[in-house]
Structure formats: C-alpha cells, structure tokens
C-alpha cells in the first residue's frame, strides 16, 4: 500500500516539476554558485573585511557571519524553485524558510549534543551559531522547496532517494554536510593540541567540505540526468 503510494506520488510531483521545479542545469549551477559564493564571501568578510577573525580564532562570530549572509540568499533562491508554485506563493515559501531556520537549528543542536557536543555556557554561542549554519545548509532549502510535504521530506532524509533535479540539489549537499560534520568530529579527542580541535571548529570544517562536495556531486548528477533525458527525447 504505502509502497505504491510512494511510487505514484513522486511521479505526480515530477510532472509538476517538469514545469516548475525541474531546474535546467544552468539554473542549478547558478543556484549552487550563489550559495558557494556567499559562503566564500562570508569567510572572506570575516577574514579580510574588517572583522579579521577566522573559524579558529573566533568560531562563534565567523559562523554567525556565515549564516547571516548565506541564509537570506539560500531562502530567496530556493523559494524560487518551490514545489507546486501554483498553490504556494513565493512569500509563503520565504516565510517557511525563515521559520525552518530556528527549527532546523534546534534539531541539529540536539543531534550534536546527543553525539557528544559539550554543553555549557561557554559553548552556548558556538553551538547555536554552528547549528544555525547547519540548518541553513540542510533544513532551509528543503523547507523552502517542499514546505510541509512529508513525503518529500521522507524521501530526501529518511530514504535518501532523490528523484528530480531539485531533490538532488537539496539531498546531496545536506547529506554531505551531515557526513562531513560527523567525520570532522573524529580528530577532536586526539592529543595533537591544535587550536582547531575545539568544538565546533573541525566539525564546521568537515561540514563545509562535505557541503561543497555535495554541491559539486549534485551538479554532476543533474548534468548526467539531463544527458539521459536528451538522449531519450532524441
């Protein structure tokens, strides 16, 4: 029962997506480029542009800069690619994205604490900013695009079965960020006595690398798919 429903549902959304969400690869490329550039810009502003901090010296401020700069861009751009644009207005998608930011941050923070992130007043700001960044990368795009469509959420996060281009664009960077953060936590307990072994510096680096790799991989998948589609059409 559930199986068949699962199969039919994406197909319907796929049909819709062909008109709306099924991004062409130039669009996908520019979206990812915008997100990547905003991340780079945030890090550059933190480093060179006046603040002169980086992830190691002041992780909390740097991470705050990252989500403050990247989050509006991600919300505005991903809302353009929302599912069923006929029923959902652009403003609504933007509001969803904005609401998803703290909610997703909550989930991320709880997950990190369950995995052993330190709890304490001196870590509070770091944890909050880190989880807001993670939320920007993982939850916000999905919230803008899918809204409250549980099937899509389930497809992306519980089953990891992306179908359309926009699925790939949300799923792969998000999973990349999670897996990267998970591996980024490994050096933390070692006795290398490097400043970047502190929470959440190396975790953020790992997540960043994973996020970028996921973006590149999703572009690759989209290009491959388009190639197939063209072959089919021909």
């Amino acid at each position, binding site marked *: *029962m*559930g199986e068949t*429903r*699962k199969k039919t549902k994406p197909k319907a959304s796929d049909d819709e997506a062909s008109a709306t969400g099924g991004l062409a690869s130039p669009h996908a490329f520019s979206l990812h480029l915008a997100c990547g550039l905003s991340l780079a810009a945030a890090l550059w502003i933190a480093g060179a542009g006046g603040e002169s901090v980086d992830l190691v010296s002041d992780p909390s401020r740097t991470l705050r800069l990252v989500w403050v700069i990247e989050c509006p861009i991600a919300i505005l751009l991903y809302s353009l690619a929302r599912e069923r644009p006929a029923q959902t207005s652009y403003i609504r998608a933007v509001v969803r994205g904005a609401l998803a930011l703290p909610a997703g941050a909550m989930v991320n923070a709880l*997950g990190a*604490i*369950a*995995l*052993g992130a330190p*709890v304490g007043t001196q870590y509070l700001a770091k944890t909050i900013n880190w989880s807001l960044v993670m939320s920007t990368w993982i939850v916000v795009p999905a919230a803008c695009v899918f809204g409250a469509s*549980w*099937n899509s*959420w*389930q497809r992306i*996060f*519980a*089953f990891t079965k992306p179908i359309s281009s926009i699925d790939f664009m949300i799923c792969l960077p998000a999973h990349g960020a999670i897996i990267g953060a*998970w591996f980024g*936590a490994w050096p*933390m*307990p*070692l*006795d*290398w006595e490097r400043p970047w072994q502190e929470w959440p510096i190396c975790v953020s680096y790992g997540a960043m690398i994973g996020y970028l790799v996921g973006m590149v991989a999703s572009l690759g998948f989209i290009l491959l798919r388009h190639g197939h589609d063209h072959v089919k059409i021909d």
Partner: protein
Amino acid sequence: MSPSSITCSRFAIIAAAAVLLQSLGLSLFIFGFFPTKPALSGVSGPESFRAPWPNGVGNDSAAALPPEELKRLYQELSEISPPFDRLILMVVDGLPAEFVLGRDDKPPREAFVEAMPYTQSLLANGFAVGYHAKAAPPTVTMPCLKAMVSGAIGGFLDVALNFNTQALQDDNIIGQFFRTGRKMVMHGDDTWLKLFPGSFIRHDGVSSFFVKDTVQVDQNVSRHLDEELCRDDWDLLILHYLGLDHVGHLGGRNSFLMGPKLKEMDEVIEMIHQSSLRDKKNHQTGTLLVIVSDHGMTESGNHGGSSFEETDSLAVFVDLGDHTLDHASATDNSANQIDIAATVALLFNVPIPKNNIGVVIPHALNFMTDAEKMRALELNSWQLLRLLQAQLSGLPCEHVLVEENTGDTKSVVTECGGNIEQVFCCLYQNAAVLHRSWKFKRIFVSNIEDYKSAAAAYYVFLRTASQWLARRMTDKPVGLLVVGISAMILSCLIFLGLVFHLNEALYVREDHQISSLKKYAFSWHLDEIFLMGATLIHVISMGSSSMVEEEQYIWYFVSSTFYLLLIRKTAQTILADRTQSSVGLSLSLNGKISYPIISLFSVLVSGRILRAWHQGGINWVNLPDISKWLKLAGHEYVKRLWLLACLSVIILSIYVLIFLWTRRKMVLVVGFSFFIPGLMVLKYIISHEDDTSGSFTYSYGSTVSAQKIYRVLGALTVVAVVAVPWLIHIWTSKACSNGDICLSTSGSHDILKLPPLMEMRDSFYVIGWAYIFCWCLLQLLLQQPTNSLPVLLLLVQIYASMLHSFSALPAHKHWIEVAALYQLGMAGHFALGNSNSLATIDVAGAFIGASDFSMLSSGVLMFIITYASPLLFLLSMPMWISVKDFNCLVTLRNANLGDLLKMMLGFPCVIPLCLNSVTLTAYTIILLLMRNHLFIWSVFSPKYLYVAAATVCVYLGVFIIASTGTYIYLVTFIGKDKIRSFNGGMR
C-alpha cells in the same frame, strides 16, 4: 546447501571448541609476550666472590654462618676494604634529575638552583657526584624501588597484577644487608615496610594515600632525623620523602610549592652532611649519603609512562667522609637506576644480587684504590657472567681462559665477532687478560695506561652484557606468539562463520514462501554497514596510542550515531504510517509507533548523561564532569542521589516485571522475594557513613550487612533460575487443564501461543529480569556512591532497548540488536569511570564486605566492579530472547526443537563472542607490531590486560546465557509427550 545441516549440538560443540582455542591462544600469547620473572632463584652467597666456573675452590657452607661471621667472610673474600660503614639512602619521591643536574649540558632552571644551594655547592666542589639514573617503565614507586634494590627490571605482569604490595622475594641489597647483620632504620613511605617486612629495627611509615598533604608527610620523616643522626646503632638509614611527588601531582613541575619543597630537601641534605662532618672524628670510616629519586614526573606532575621526563630519576652519591672526588663536571652523567644496586653492594662488601643486570657506576668507585676498583669490576663481571650462563647454556669461556698467558697483551686482545656467546666470551677474555697483565706489571711499575685500558675493557663487557640481558627481559619467544596468534585468528574466523551461518539459517529457509523477507535478509541496510564500519574503525584506531587512551570517545560516538540511525530507520516507518492515516486508516497506529521512538530517545538521552558523568581517558581527564561536581557538592548530595537511584531501580524493575501480569502468581512470588534484597540495599545505603576521612575502614556493621546482601542475592538468583521454569511449567499445565486461556503478554502471533513456547519465553523473561535486578543491586552496593545514578541510567538503557526490540516494526535483524547491546555495554564500561589505564580500577570497592583480606574475593569483586556494564548487558540477553520474535522459525514445517534452541541461544552467545574475538585478535596483532613503541608498557600493555579481561567477561556472560537457556529448554520440553504435542501443534 541446507545451512540448517548443522544441528544444535554440533553448533554448540563448534562454538565451545572455538572458545577453547581462543583462550589457549590468548594464554600462550600472554605468556610469550609479557616478560616473566628473572632467571635465577635464590640469593647470592660467598660463591659470588669466585669465578663462575667450577675449577675454583667450591663448597660453601655460608648459610649456617651467623651474620657477623658472614660479614667478615664477605669482607675477606671480596678483597676490598670497605670505604664506608654506614649508608644513608635518601629517596625523594618523584624528583626529576633535571631539577638538580640540568638537561643536555644545560644547567637546571634558575629557581631550582636557588632552591638547592647546598646540594649545588656539594656538586660543584666535588663532594658529590650526580647521575641521571634512567628508570625503567612503569615509573611507579614500587617497581622502581624494587629495581633500585635488586638491580633487575621487573616483569610487566608482575607489576600489573600486584595490586597489594607484597614482600620482595628476589635477591636484593636490603636482604643482603639484613643477612650480614646490619641494622636498618626506615622513615617514610610505607612501601618499604611492605617490601621488607621485619627488616627494620625502627621505622615510621607514612602512607602515600593523602596526596593533598605536602607538608605533614615530610615532617613525619624529618622529625626523626635529629635523633637518628645522633645515634650510632644503625648501619643503613632509609629516608623516603613523599612530599615532592605530592606537590607534582597537585600542581605539576611548575607548582609554586616546588621551590619551597626543594629548599626543604636541601635543608635535610645540609643537616645530614653537617652532622656527619661533625661526627667524623668519632667514626673510623665514613658515611655514604646516596640521594635517589624513584622516578621523575611529566610537566603536569604525573608519572607511570616512559617519557624522558618520567624516567629521569636522580642518583647522587655524597661522600660524608674525607674522600675527595675528582669528578666535578657533569659530562658523562647518565646511568641506569638498576646500577645503584651493584654499586652499593660493592661499596659495602655484600654480594651483588643474583639477578642484577646493572653495572657499577664508574665514579662511585673513586672511593677505592685502583686494585680494588679492578676487583669490583671483576666481581660485577662474574655476577653478570653467571646470569649469562643461565640464559645461554654452555657459555664456553672457561677453556679459553685456561690457555691464556700473561705475556704480551697486545697480541691477546682481539676484535670480537661471531655469535653472541663468542662475543661475550671474547669481551670478557679481553678484560680479564688486561686485568691480569696490569696486575702482573704493577709489581714493577704502576702503569696508568694499562689500568685505563683494562677498566675500559671491563666496562665494554659489562655494558654489552647488561644491555643484552635487559633486552632479553623483553625478548619474545617467537614460536609461542605465532601459535597463539594463529589460534586466535582461527577462532575468530570460526566465530564469523558461525554468525554467517546463523544469519543464513534464520532467513534462507523461507525463500520460496516469503520473498520479501528474503530480500530483506540479503539487502545490506545502513545500520548493518555502519556497525561493521564502526568495528573496523575501532580496530584501526587502536593502533594509535592516543586513540587507545581516549577509546571511550569512539564507543560513545559510535553507539549514539547508531541510535540516531535507528531513529532515521524508524522515521521511515512512521512517515509511511502517517500517509496511511491521512488516507483514513485508524490513528491508533501512531500510538504503536511511539514506543520505538520513545525508547530510542531514552537510550540517547541516558547515553548522553552517562557520557558526561566521567571525563575519562588520559588527556582531558581534568576537565569538569558530573562526578567531580558531585564530589565537590559533598557526601550529603551523593547519598541522596544514591538513595534515589536505588529506589528508582527497584520501582522500575518491579514495573517491568508487572508486564507479565498474566502470570499473576509468578509476578507476586518473584516480585516480593526480590523486594527483600532491594530493601536490604536501601538500608545499607541509609546507614552508610561518610568515609571522606579516607581511612577505608568499613565499620563492622556495614561489613556484615554487605555479606548478608551478597548471600541473599546469590541465593535468590540461584533459586529463581532453578525454580522459575518448573513453577511456570506446573502452573501453566494446571491452568490449561482448568480450561483457562493460556495466554502470554508477549507475542501476538497465533503460532507463538503454543504453550511450551510461551512457557519458555516467560521463563526467559523472569530469569533475565532476575539477573538484571540482582546485578544492579550488587552494583549499587559496590560501585562508588557517585556511580549510583549511572547504574540506573544503564538499566534504563537496557529496558528501553528491550522495548525497542519488542515494538520496532519492521524488526531489526537479530545480530544488529545483540551487537547494539554489546556496544551500549562497552560505552557504559567507560561511563562508569573506567579507562585503559590500570589507575582507574576501583580498588577500594573490592574490600566492601570483606572481613579479612583474601586475594581471591577482592579480585572477584574488582572484576565485578570493573566489568559491571558489559556483564549487565550480557545478563540482559535472556530477557532479549524472550522479547524477540522467533516466530519465523516456528512456522517452518520441518522445524525441530534443536533448531529453535540454536536460534534462540545462537545470536546472544555467538555475536558477543565474535565481536570480542575480532577486537582481541586485531589488538593482539597491533600489540605485536607495536612492541618497540615508546608507549608499549604504559599504554598498549595495560589496554591488552583490559582486552583479555573483557574476553573473560564475555566468556562468563555467554556461559551464563547458554546454561540458563539450555536449562529452561530441558525443563520446558521434559517428557516426550510435550514434544509430540509441540509438533502436533506445528501441523
């Protein structure tokens, strides 16, 4: 193909054979890898003053001689007139030689020089010589003291397994002094009194227990000093100052207390020196002051490892007479701690201890004439030759020496080569020839050149022999190791094979009936891949010493990640159900779904609190954690928490038991009888006294009540295991004959309502419950009071896991669930404050309820405390068997009872054995590869002891599971009619 071709009994035999093979391999490896006791037994006597071959005049009857005679005999034989008649051995615990002598030609730090003006002036004016006396790891007080007095490096197992200090049995200089009738006095660390009971005419032992005390502990030594220096009834005075070590433990090398403490030590040295100078006229010969430290300390003040800072101990020889030492510079001032024994023995005309591998310290010989120096070197060489002879059978030095002549030395001295025996012979021969030629020539003219070359030749031989013998101590018999490792690898492969066989047997037979099940069984799921990957990562990580030190992080991280993955897996089903409910199916499904999610969350939350309880490991152990916070908060809070934990354990357990309410009589009987020990533990906690005074003397009343609790818990568990299957059996048959419905709460499938199966599952449930409850109560009694809440949290984790296994749909694979429980057990092991260092073993708990000391009982208690968590999770396996659905087995047409038993017991027994064998085998290989690593004795070897003990723990748990299961099975299916009815029911 038929994987079910392995019957139950054959399966059991294969598993048991693999266990035997593994334990054999493990013991072979341990005996091969860890250095054992020294080679020669007994003590050195007059024979040590003769050459080690039998052509000298033999027949010693020294044993019968009275001490004074013996002393005179030794003096005669040694041909050395003793330069001193009294020895003051001043041990400054934990003083790094760097503080006094500097490091690598650099002078010591300014502050330390200023703190010890007198000692520095002694060194500068040539009244004293100082050495960096390298200590052998583990750099802990007792083994270092043993090395110092016996000249031998102790075995690692000897150190690790010797938790309570016992008298030193090996030959040592203190024993030699005692036998020659010298009077000895000891003030300071009571380790000396434990090592040499009854040897001292006066002593004042202080305990090293109160680490925070840096003042009183040394005053207790110094207060005797005035009196002792005035008296002349002693020949050996030992002063062991602990304060400096305590300062280090509290504040590290740079502690603000370090300067004043060094100053205090300097004042003691000055006092001894001045008083001896004053007394000099009264004494014919002098007094020798030897200032030594047993080990150094790291920057943070710890010790035990093998870094330069820790092994850099001090040896200063201060002449208190009128001898002059021509050695003022600190050019060649490195020695070994083991050299002290030989040096002191030669200076005081006692035989060098039999297993000594040290070499006499060159400048200490400056107290003697040239002839005596030569003689001392010769005696040292003979002693080492004896030891070499014991190791290398037929060291053929004898005949070479016979044909030598005393003529031209240049032609006799040869380059040494060939095998190890020939090298030793040749080196010794060179030295002996030069010695003889020097002696011969000396009659005519004193030749300093010849003397120097002879002494140099002796030192070449002594150093070579000493190094070879030291290496020999850690030398490994390759054959044993290879056999041991291959046995372990083989048994590991057998276990892996058994696991695959079980997995196959569970699902494959269904193939033509339920294809989806088959698909499920053969597709690899994320959680399975993750667990395998995690095992792999764990194994690889153990190759790094810092990961071994911080192993707990891996277990915490992996287990909580695994449970997050399970949440994801459960989310797949929840969302699917939500879509169904949105279509219009009943909402009650959501209620059912909430159990798995809630249980997973409680496992995660308890796991996180457990993790925060003890900041384990080595590097970050000083960071704040809940247990430290509780200790600061005071005993009152700890006790309240303890009571709360105990009450919650009792209430939670009774609540879990009530799940089986359909067997009302059973629940009532078991519940009430197990309530009694619960109350007893409560009473014990209430009456428990605050023992922060540190005296560790448990009052008589608490000892008796602890013993009572042991007895009641033991008796109840045995009675429960024996009686419960019978009671359930009898009551079921009675109820069935009365026409009642034979229902059980567990199991909703019709096939499971077969009476015998239900009986088995209920028996498993009750017995598993009894195991868990008793174990938790025992832990509440034994663990430190701060660990009471973690015990409760572990219990919560167990019951939550059971609830999850029972309610999760689709059910996880069997092996995944057992492996997850094993993971939780290991994470809990570290959460209770254990680490891979031997220092965290709770020795104090091992004496609860012990009225007199017994090695066995305290060892057992120590094991119970240390392996509380892994054993708890193993003991929960009977309950897991009862909550797990085995219905897929029973639906088979050709199912026989043996297969059922194999499936039920196979997973909980073989999975822990398999996981443990993978760890054990991998770590054994790592240990072998790391044998030359700097941290082999301080990090890797203690971890290996833990791995070996964990293996024992798994054996124990698996044995309990297997025997309980077999017993329940036998009781349930006793009588053939039962089996017939079972098979009838099948059809």
